[in-house]
């Protein structure tokens, strides 16, 4: 809402207040002023009179003017097409500072020029307030403009500042200059003077108004005969311009002017074009509607339509029809001031893409009980400026009773809510300043009557806000709440997640944040863990972001690709995030390792491989105290070319696949532009880990007897897995094998094709001294079983 200080001071005493002080006062009363702007600027201006206008000898469009500036006559070269003898103009004299720069004496194509004739555009007036002629040429002042007048901006009504008010959804009443004046009056305790008008009726109209829908609760109309459309008076044009509205003609301007001042949108019908002398609001039409803008719109049931003889004459609160539009031949009109349901207007205007100053006022909420006053105000202006002489009575349909909202309040309760110590007098005087009716009941309690324009005030909490926003938050005593001591802190689940993240950071991985919305295509890529149905947006902004993801990995691979493209080729990235599908909600972890391992002496290089990632996974389990016997890695298989089929695995915990890890498939690498480097990925559902129960570890006795280590070297087929070998050893350990670890795997020279050499270290021990026989017997049994079960050949 744009508010001109010059207009505002017509209704509230602003003596001694600067625009900045007013802006500040409004802001700290909860009405944020986003900008204080001046309408126009320029120094050293004067009103001149063109005495002579000759063509420039050396140009086909320039004129050489002799301009009377009151005290002297100057020669000015001017390029405006409308420059002519006898015109009164704005002259920027030598030294004048305009928004575009300073005016200096100059010689234009050999002719001396001592100043410049200005358009309003050159004074900084926004082109949206100007008509075509005004933007193309210099400003044409009226014939009675006083030559020699130096307060040109004052004369033009442009010596003004305009406040840009950010109107929040609770204060639609401030979309009215009168109400802004009341607010400013309350804030600064200044006198407010809102004029009221009454135009007596000259005759009784046969107009019938009504509503056949509860979406229109009130409809008032008046018939006015014998109007003349013409240009609006200057004061009205200036007022409109200062509030951001263009002047059209007297009748349209009066509608806008009244709306800006009162907040009530009006509509005018050319009475002679109506099929019948009735205006009835309905919401059951299903027709094509040709609007004022000459476009055809589809009206559907639930749109509020003002009808005459069941024909749509106006899309209520949104736009009138072409059929009964007021034009410069119009003689007799009906004025409408109605109240429409905001939600309906909102639906209609957003469906049709038709939003206007008036529709937005209905959407936000209007005062339902001022229609007749507003019609009287408009009538007064029509009487003054449209030569209209005959006014009918005002006819009104009203389905809701005018009921004054009354609230019972208590000073104590208000103070309790605010943390303040205001007394009754302070509290009540604030409310009185804000035009609330106040009646004291006893020392503490009082009754408040809410003014009809304050749609937002419905309970005592709202009253407390009125009090504090005028008396100021500086009065609030800052006190920490005294609350019961209790065990707060993170839950086990929350602290586990925090620990996992911290441990990954400590291992050198960088923590990323990616978008939750993906394109439909990408949402299926690298979705390694589930095929659950994902959520899709009804109203995405772009195809790129229309599906709520159920996995992180794709986004993290994009981040990896982004970095590699910027020559950062060694990466260890991770992200944890909450995933939601139609059937589940899970906390996920994804990791992407690219290039060489960062966890090494920085002078050596080791490309990331499967086992780095496996180590990360094992560490996470260990961190949460989950022993490695409780989970396992199985081979991963998939039809998709996403992971290397021989270098990938699933993580199985509590008999469920909770994660997938592996090196990237060469074709997938290509897609992300990562062909030349090693890429290992992980996606893991952390839910079961975060929720898993871990028992307390009872101390295991430490044997007093030394353990014995023996190494075995085997040759087995390549397909035999390390875990198979370990399983055989542990199963046949005669109760004395405590541990078995692979410490070397070798393929190549010396080992026949398709086989590998595996070296294993076996630890044996018992409560007592092991005899050589026990050791030999056990090893023999192990060797025998290895030969039998995995076809192992012993190497010496």
């Amino acid at each position, binding site marked *: 809402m744009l508010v001109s200080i010059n207009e505002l001071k017509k209704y509230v005493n602003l003596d001694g207040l600067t625009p900045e002080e007013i802006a500040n006062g409004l802001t700290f009363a909860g009405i944020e002023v986003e900008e204080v702007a001046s309408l126009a600027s320029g120094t050293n201006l004067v009103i001149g009179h063109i005495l002579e206008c000759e063509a420039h000898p050396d140009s086909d469009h320039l004129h050489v003017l002799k301009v009377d500036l009151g005290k002297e006559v100057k020669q000015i070269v001017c390029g405006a097409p409308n420059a002519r003898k006898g015109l009164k103009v704005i002259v920027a004299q030598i030294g004048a500072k305009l928004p575009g720069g300073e005016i200096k004496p100059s010689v234009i194509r050999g002719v001396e020029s001592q100043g410049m004739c200005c358009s309003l555009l050159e004074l900084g007036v926004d082109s949206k307030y100007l008509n075509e002629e005004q933007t193309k040429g210099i400003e044409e002042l009226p014939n009675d403009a006083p030559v020699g007048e130096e307060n040109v901006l004052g004369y033009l009504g442009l010596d003004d500042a305009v406040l840009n008010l950010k109107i929040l959804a609770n204060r639609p009443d401030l979309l009215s200059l009168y109400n802004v004046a009341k607010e400013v009056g309350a804030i600064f305790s200044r006198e407010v003077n809102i004029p009221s008008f009454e135009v007596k009726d000259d005759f009784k109209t046969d107009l019938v108004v009504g509503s056949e829908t509860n979406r229109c609760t009130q409809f008032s109309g008046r018939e006015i005969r014998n109007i003349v459309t013409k240009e609006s008076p200057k004061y009205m044009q200036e007022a409109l311009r200062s509030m951001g509205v263009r002047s059209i003609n007297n009748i349209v301007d009066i509608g806008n002017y009244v709306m800006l001042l009162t907040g009530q949108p009006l509509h005018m019908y050319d009475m002679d074009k109506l099929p019948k002398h009735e205006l009835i609001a309905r919401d059951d039409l299903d027709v094509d509607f040709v609007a004022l803008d000459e476009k055809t719109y589809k009206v559907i049931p639930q749109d509020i339509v003002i009808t005459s003889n069941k024909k749509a004459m106006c899309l209520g609160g949104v736009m009138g029809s072409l059929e009964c539009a007021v034009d410069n031949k119009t003689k007799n009109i009906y004025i409408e001031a109605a109240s429409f349901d905001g939600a309906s207007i909102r639906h209609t205007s957003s469906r049709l893409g038709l939003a206007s100053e008036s529709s937005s006022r209905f959407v936000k909420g209007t005062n339902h009980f001022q229609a007749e006053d507003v019609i009287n105000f408009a009538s007064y202006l029509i009487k003054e400026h449209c030569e209209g002489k005959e006014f009918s009575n005002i006819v009104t349909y009203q389905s809701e009773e005018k009921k004054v909202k009354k609230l019972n309040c208590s000073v104590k309760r208000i103070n309790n809510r605010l943390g303040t110590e205001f007394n009754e007098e302070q509290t009540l005087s604030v409310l009185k300043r804000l035009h609330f009716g106040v009646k004291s009941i006893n020392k503490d309690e009082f009754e408040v009557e809410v003014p009809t324009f304050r749609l937002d005030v419905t309970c005592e909490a709202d009253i407390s806000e009125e009090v504090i926003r005028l008396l100021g938050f500086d009065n609030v005593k*800052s006190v920490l*709440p005294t609350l019961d001591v209790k065990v707060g802190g993170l839950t086990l689940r929350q602290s586990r997640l925090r620990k996992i993240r911290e441990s990954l950071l400590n291992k050198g991985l960088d923590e990323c944040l990616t978008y939750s919305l993906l394109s439909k295509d990408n949402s299926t890529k690298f979705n390694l863990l589930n095929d659950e149905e994902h959520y899709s947006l009804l109203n995405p*902004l772009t195809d790129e972001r229309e599906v709520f993801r159920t996995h992180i990995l794709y986004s993290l691979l994009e981040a990896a690709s982004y970095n590699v493209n910027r020559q950062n080729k060694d990466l260890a990235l991770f992200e944890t995030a909450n995933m939601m599908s139609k059937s589940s909600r899970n906390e996920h972890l994804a990791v992407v390792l690219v290039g060489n391992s960062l966890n090494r002496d920085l002078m050596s290089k080791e490309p990331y491989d499967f086992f780095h990632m496996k180590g990360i996974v094992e560490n996470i389990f260990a961190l949460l105290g989950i022993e490695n016997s409780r989970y396992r890695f199985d081979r991963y298989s998939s039809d998709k070319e996403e992971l290397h089929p021989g270098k990938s695995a699933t993580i199985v915990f509590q008999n469920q696949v909770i994660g997938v890890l592996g090196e990237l498939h060469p074709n997938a690498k290509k897609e992300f532009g990562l062909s030349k480097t090693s890429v290992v990925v992980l996606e893991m559902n952390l839910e079961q880990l975060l929720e898993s129960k871990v028992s307390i570890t009872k101390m295991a006795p430490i044997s007093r007897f030394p353990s014995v280590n023996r190494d075995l070297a085997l040759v087995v087929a390549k397909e035999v897995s390390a875990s198979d070998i370990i399983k055989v050893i542990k199963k046949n350990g005669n109760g004395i094998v405590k541990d078995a670890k692979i410490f070397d795997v070798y393929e190549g020279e010396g080992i026949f094709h398709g086989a590998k050499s595996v070296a294993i270290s076996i630890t044996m021990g018992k409560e007592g001294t092991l005899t050589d026989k026990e050791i030999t017997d056990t090893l023999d049994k192990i060797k025998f079983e290895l030969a039998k079960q995995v076809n192992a050949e012993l190497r010496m």
Partner: protein
Amino acid sequence: MENQNINEIYQSAMDEIGESSTSEKLQELKIKFLAKKSVLMSLLSTLGSLPPEERKEMGQKLNEVKAKIASAIEEKENQLRKEELEKKLKSETIDISLPSKRVELGGQNPFYVVKDEITDIFLNMGFEVADGPEVETDLYNFELLNIPKDHPARDMQDTFYISDSVLLRTHTSPVQAHTMQAAEGKPIRIICPGKTYRRDDDDATHSHQFAQIEGLVIDKDINIGHLKATLELFAKKMFGEKREIRLRPSYFPFTEPSVEVDITCANCNGKGCSMCKGTGYIEILGGGMVHPNVLKMNGYDPDVYSGFAFGIGIERVAILRYGIDDIRKFYQNDIRFLRQYRKKA
């Protein structure tokens, strides 16, 4: 005669020990002077031929010389060993300026640094961390927060819809309703960090995805002074002890009264600069007293209980604190950006 001989042997032994510079040479000298077949020892074997009074004297003298030579050799040996070790150690000297073998700590998107830090500040004040879904229902995102269908405040938040009644939450405030319903009328003191979504085109200052930290305190006799003190403490912990806060009236449908909270600009200490557009203050969060309707709808009697709520923009705090010029940087994950940040111990 023999006395003189002994002295000569002693002298030459001492000379040779003094001149020797290797342990091998000292071994030779041990044999030369102290072995059974050495001159000295052969003199010992001739003792028997001496008269008894001389024998005793000579024997003592011989033993003395032997001991002196032995100790001189040992001393020299020790000296040589020490020198050799010193030489060896010196030769092992390294360039201590070469890179270390540490595991470099990972960088952390400043989003998480700020999120964890704010969380910890409130944990220390006795808050708990609540959680809620990012895909929400209209009921929780709007209606239970005093934003009924067609309320004009819905226009303040352009929403991504999944269906008529399911949407991506536009703020973390639905967690207020979830928490109140789960707490069944008991006092509440929670925060909830989380991702939120609005239908905004991405540019330097707008993002369709961003995150907030919601705060909610409900108890008997809670007032704005409690909100003010809590946020004052937060602002000082987060932005420094010198920061002051200021409340300005504002509007949110689910709080009444509602406030915007400004802190004194860290750049100019409240004097006014380009960062705070000359006002000396920077807006950091919104909050207010929980609206009685919200309490009522979620199972609390507004005549008995009151509460305050607030919402902090995580990226906004990070942007202010680190001078980040473009909100999209949080979502690009350029490691040159990430590695500038990590939570300080």
